[in-house]
C-alpha cells in the first residue's frame, strides 16, 4: 500500500446548515433540498441520491417552502419574495415580492398553472405561472393571523390553510373561506399557548393537520368535523407528507421521529378503512423539519443537517442497494483546495475563505506513530467575501501565489505575496467580462492560467505578474447547457477535462485551445475524476462507483478499464453509499490511484489483479497474518484505509506526503441547535 507522512488536518471547521424545506419531483425524479443558509441542493433519485447541483445561498435569504412546477423550481421564504431558481446557471432566475410580508408556504395546483402563497398578513395570494415570470392574480382571506401552511385539493377548487388555532378552507371560485376548523390547544401546561398548525394536507376526502400540540388530526372535508386524533408526540408535529396513492402518511416531529400512518381495513376483507398509526422511525437526533415521499423511500431532513433516506421495506421486493438506509451529511463536492507545491490549503466557508500553511516535521518513526511537529500549521489569511452572496467555488494555484473565488454575482482573483513572515494580498483588476461568475475554477499546474466555467463553456485567462488577460472560450460541440460540475487538468497542462451535471465529459487541448474529444456518456453522474500525471489517462469515478480509465491521447478506454468492466467490481465496493469525491495519484508509484469518499480513502494498485466476486474485499488484516511469500498471491488491487473519519479532503503533496482533512462528528453535533429534553433511566 505504501508509506506516507500524513498531515492530519482538523482545523477546517466546516459546519453544515440545517434542512428547512424539501420537494420531490416525481416526473424528473429529482429531490430539491433547501438549507437554512439559503442554498438549494438537487439530488437525483435514480442515481442513489447523488448531489447533482447546488445553488449557492445568500445572506438574509431563508427558504420556507419549495415547489416544483413541471421542471421549474420555485421557492419562497421569510424575506417575502417568491423566487424561481435557474437550474442551468445555478442562480436565481427572478424574484418577486408578494407584498404580504414573510411567506410561510407555497403550493402549486395539480394542473401546474397557479401558485398559492401563504403570507404573514393572513392572505393567500394566487399567482399565475407564465413562461418566465409569475403574475399576481388575486388575494383570498385577509384577516389577521399568519398563514403557516397550505394544501391544494386534487380537484384544484379548494385550498386548506393552516393558521394559528385554526384551519380555514378557501373556495377558489368565490375566494371566500367556506370552512373554519378550530384546533384545540395542548393539554395542561400548553393551555395558555396558542396552537400553531405547522403542516396541513388535503387528501381527496379528508384534511390532515399536524400542530404544535403534537397531534395529527384528520378532519372530514364535507362536514368539517374531527374524525380522528392521534397524539404523536409531546412536542410539535412540524411536517406531513403523503404518498401519491393516498394510502400512507408520514409525520415528522420535534423529537426527531418520523411516524407512519396507513389506511388499513378495519376488518380484513371488508370495505371500511381507517387511518392507523403503524411505524415510527428514529433516525434524527434533532427536529425533523421537512419530509418527502418518493414511492419506495421516505426522505427526511431537519436541524441535525443530515438527509436520511429510509426505504419502506413493504414496498420493496428484493434486497438491493436501494433497500438500505442512507444518510447524507457531508457535501458531495470538495470544499478544500490544495496547493501541492507550496503546501497550502484553502478552505471554503459560505462567507469567507481561509488559507493555511501546513505544519512540518523532521522526525522519523515506525508506521502508525505520531511524529513531533517542528513547525505548527499557520493561518495565513482570512478573506471575507464582499456582498451578500455565498461562495460557490474557490481555488488556489499550485504555487500558492493566486487565489480565486466566485459567487453568483462576481468572480474575484487575488495575488498573494509571501515573505518570510508577511503576507500581502492584492486584488487583480479587470477580469474579463465573459467570466462574470463561475461554477468551477481551477488553475493550470504551472499557475500560468486560470480556467473558469460559466454554464457549459470553459474560459481561459492568462495570468502574468502585470495582471490577467482573456485568451479563449471553449464551448462543447454538443451545445448542452448543463452546468460544469468538475474540472481536471493534466500535470503537463496540455489537457483539460470538464464534466457536467448530465455526466458528459469533454476534453480540450489547451495548447491548441481546441476541443480534443469526448468520453462516451455513462448513465450515472461523474462524482470525481483526475488525469494521471505520467500517462495522461483520465480516471473517472461515477456515482454508482463504477471506475473507468480513458486514455486521452489514444481517445479510447485503456486495457485496465476494459478489464474492470469485463470482470466487474467487487460487490462490497459497489454497495458503498457515499460517492467518491476526489481522485489523486501517487507521484512515486504510477500504478497507484488514490480515491476518497467521506468515510475512507482507498488506493487502487493497477498492477495487481482485481478482487473476484468470492474473495474477501477487506483483506488487509488477513494479509498481515500471512507470511511474506504468500501475501502477493492473495492480495488484490483495492486497499482501503478507514483510520481517518469523516474526511473532507485527501490529497497528495509534491513531497510525497498525504494531507487528510477530517471533521469530527462530535464537533458538528455540539454546534447544532438544542434538541428536545429526554429522560432516560439511570443516566
Amino acid at each position, binding site marked *: 500500500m505504501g508509506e506516507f507522512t500524513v498531515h492530519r488536518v482538523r482545523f477546517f471547521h466546516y459546519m453544515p446548515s440545517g434542512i428547512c424545506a424539501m420537494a420531490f419531483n416525481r416526473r424528473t425524479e429529482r429531490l430539491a433540498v433547501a438549507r437554512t443558509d439559503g442554498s438549494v441542493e438537487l439530488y437525483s433519485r435514480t442515481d442513489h441520491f447523488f448531489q447533482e447541483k447546488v445553488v449557492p445561498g445568500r445572506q438574509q435569504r431563508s427558504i420556507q417552502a419549495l415547489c416544483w412546477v413541471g421542471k421549474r423550481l420555485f421557492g419562497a421564504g421569510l424575506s417575502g419574495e417568491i423566487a424561481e431558481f435557474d437550474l442551468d446557471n445555478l442562480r436565481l432566475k427572478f424574484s418577486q415580492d408578494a407584498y404580504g410580508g414573510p411567506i410561510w408556504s407555497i403550493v402549486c395546483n395539480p394542473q401546474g398553472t397557479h401558485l398559492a402563497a401563504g403570507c404573514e398578513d393572513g392572505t393567500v395570494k394566487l399567482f399565475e405561472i407564465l413562461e418566465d415570470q409569475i403574475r399576481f392574480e388575486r388575494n383570498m382571506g385577509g384577516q389577521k393571523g399568519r398563514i403557516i401552511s397550505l394544501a391544494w385539493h386534487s380537484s384544484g377548487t379548494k385550498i386548506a390553510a393552516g393558521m394559528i388555532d385554526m384551519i380555514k378552507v378557501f373556495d377558489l371560485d368565490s375566494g371566500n373561506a367556506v370552512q373554519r376548523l378550530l384546533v384545540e390547544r395542548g393539554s395542561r401546561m400548553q393551555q395558555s399557548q396558542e396552537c400553531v398548525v405547522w403542516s396541513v394536507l388535503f387528501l381527496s376526502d379528508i384534511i390532515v393537520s399536524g400542530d404544535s400540540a403534537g397531534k395529527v388530526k384528520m378532519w372530514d372535508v364535507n362536514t368539517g368535523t374531527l374524525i380522528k386524533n392521534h397524539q404523536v408526540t409531546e412536542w410539535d408535529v412540524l411536517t406531513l407528507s403523503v404518498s401519491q396513492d393516498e394510502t400512507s402518511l408520514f409525520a415528522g416531529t420535534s423529537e426527531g421521529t418520523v411516524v407512519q400512518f396507513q389506511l388499513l381495513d378495519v376488518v380484513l376483507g371488508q370495505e371500511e378503512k381507517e387511518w392507523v398509526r403503524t411505524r415510527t422511525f428514529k433516525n434524527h437526533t434533532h427536529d425533523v423539519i421537512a419530509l418527502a415521499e418518493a414511492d419506495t423511500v421516505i426522505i427526511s431532513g431537519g436541524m441535525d443537517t443530515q438527509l436520511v433516506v429510509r426505504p419502506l421495506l413493504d414496498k420493496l421486493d428484493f434486497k438491493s442497494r436501494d433497500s438500505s438506509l442512507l444518510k447524507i451529511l457531508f457535501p458531495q463536492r470538495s470544499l478544500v483546495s490544495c496547493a501541492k507545491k507550496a503546501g497550502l490549503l484553502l478552505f471554503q466557508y459560505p462567507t469567507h475563505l481561509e488559507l493555511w500553511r501546513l505544519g512540518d516535521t523532521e522526525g522519523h518513526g515506525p508506521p502508525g506513530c505520531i511524529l513531533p511537529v517542528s513547525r505548527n500549521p499557520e493561518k495565513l489569511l482570512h478573506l471575507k467575501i464582499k456582498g451578500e452572496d455565498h461562495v460557490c467555488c474557490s481555488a488556489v494555484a499550485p504555487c500558492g501565489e493566486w487565489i480565486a473565488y466566485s459567487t453568483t454575482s462576481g468572480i474575484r482573483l487575488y495575488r498573494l505575496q509571501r515573505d518570510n513572515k508577511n503576507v500581502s494580498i492584492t486584488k487583480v483588476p479587470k477580469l474579463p467580462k465573459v467570466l462574470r461568475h463561475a461554477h468551477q475554477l481551477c488553475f493550470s499546474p504551472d499557475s500560468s492560467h486560470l480556467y473558469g466555467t460559466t454554464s457549459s463553456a470553459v474560459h481561459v485567462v492568462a495570468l502574468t505578474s502585470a495582471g490577467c488577460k482573456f485568451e479563449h472560450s471553449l464551448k462543447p460541440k454538443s451545445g448542452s447547457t448543463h452546468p460544469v460540475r468538475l474540472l481536471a487538468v493534466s500535470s503537463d497542462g496540455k489537457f483539460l477535462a470538464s464534466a457536467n451535471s448530465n455526466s458528459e465529459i469533454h476534453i480540450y487541448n489547451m495548447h491548441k485551445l481546441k476541443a480534443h474529444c469526448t468520453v462516451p456518456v455513462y448513465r450515472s453522474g461523474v462524482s470525481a475524476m483526475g488525469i494521471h500525471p505520467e500517462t495522461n489517462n483520465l480516471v473517472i469515478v461515477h456515482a454508482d462507483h463504477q471506475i473507468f480509465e480513458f486514455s486521452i491521447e489514444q481517445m479510447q478506454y485503456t486495457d485496465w478499464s476494459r478489464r474492470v468492466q469485463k470482470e466487474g467490481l467487487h460487490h462490497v465496493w459497489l454497495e458503498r453509499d457515499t460517492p467518491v469525491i476526489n481522485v489523486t495519484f501517487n507521484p512515486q508509484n504510477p500504478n497507484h490511484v488514490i480515491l476518497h469518499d467521506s468515510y475512507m480513502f482507498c488506493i487502487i494498485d493497477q498492477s495487481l489483479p482485481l478482487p473476484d466476486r468470492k474473495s474477501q474485499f477487506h483483506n488487509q488484516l488477513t494479509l498481515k497474518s500471512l507470511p511474506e511469500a504468500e501475501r502477493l498471491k492473495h492480495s488484490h488491487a483495492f486497499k482501503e484505509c478507514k483510520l481517518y473519519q469523516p474526511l473532507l479532503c485527501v490529497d497528495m503533496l509534491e513531497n510525497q506526503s498525504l494531507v487528510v482533512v477530517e471533521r469530527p462528528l462530535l464537533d458538528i*453535533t*455540539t454546534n447544532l441547535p438544542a434538541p428536545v429534553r429526554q429522560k432516560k433511566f439511570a443516566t
Partner: protein
Amino acid sequence: MKRDGGASHDSSDDDGAPDEVTFEDSKATALRSAREAAQAAKREKERFKEWRRKRQQFFLEQKKKRLLPEDVLEEIGDFPVQKLEVSEGGDEQAVGVKAKPSAGVKRAKVRRLQANCSVMRAKDQDEAASRQQAAVDFIQARLYGPGSRRMTNNQLLSIKSKRAVHKGAAVQFMNKSKGAELRAKAEKCNKRWIHKKKLI
C-alpha cells in the same frame, strides 16, 4: 345659591359710576391693542414681501451670473444661435441650454448609478427586514423559547455515551474542551462532600 349671589354682585358692579370710566379705558386699550396687532401683521406681511422680493432678485442675479456671457455663447457654435434666442425667452429653456456644456458630467453620474445599483425606498427595506425578523423570532420562540422543554447538545451526547454498549462518562468529562464550568462545579461539589463527610 352661590352662583346667584355671584351674578348679582356682577350686575351691581356694572351699574356703579366708576365702571363707566373703566369701560372707556378698556375700550380705548382694546382698540389700541387691535390697531397695534393689525399694524404688526401688516409690518410682518411687508417684511415677508420684501424678503421674497429680495430672494427673487438674488435668484435672478445668480442665474445671470451662471450663464456664460452672450458673446462666449455665440462663439461656441453657430448652430445653437436659434436655441439661444428661444432660451432668452424663458428661464426653463435657459437651464436646458446651460446643461448642454456639462451634459457629459451628468451622463456619467447616471451611468454610475445604474451600473450595479437599484433604487428602492429605505423605509420599505426597514419594514421588510423587521417583519422578517419578527417571523424568525416567532419560529425561535415556538421551537426554542420558554416552555419548549429542550436540553443542550452536551446533555444529549452524555446520555448517548452513558447508554452506549461501552459506557462512558458525560461529555464534559470525556472531552476536556467542553463544559469547563460544569466540570468546575462538579469538582467543587466533590470537595464539599468530602468536607461534609470529614473524609480528610
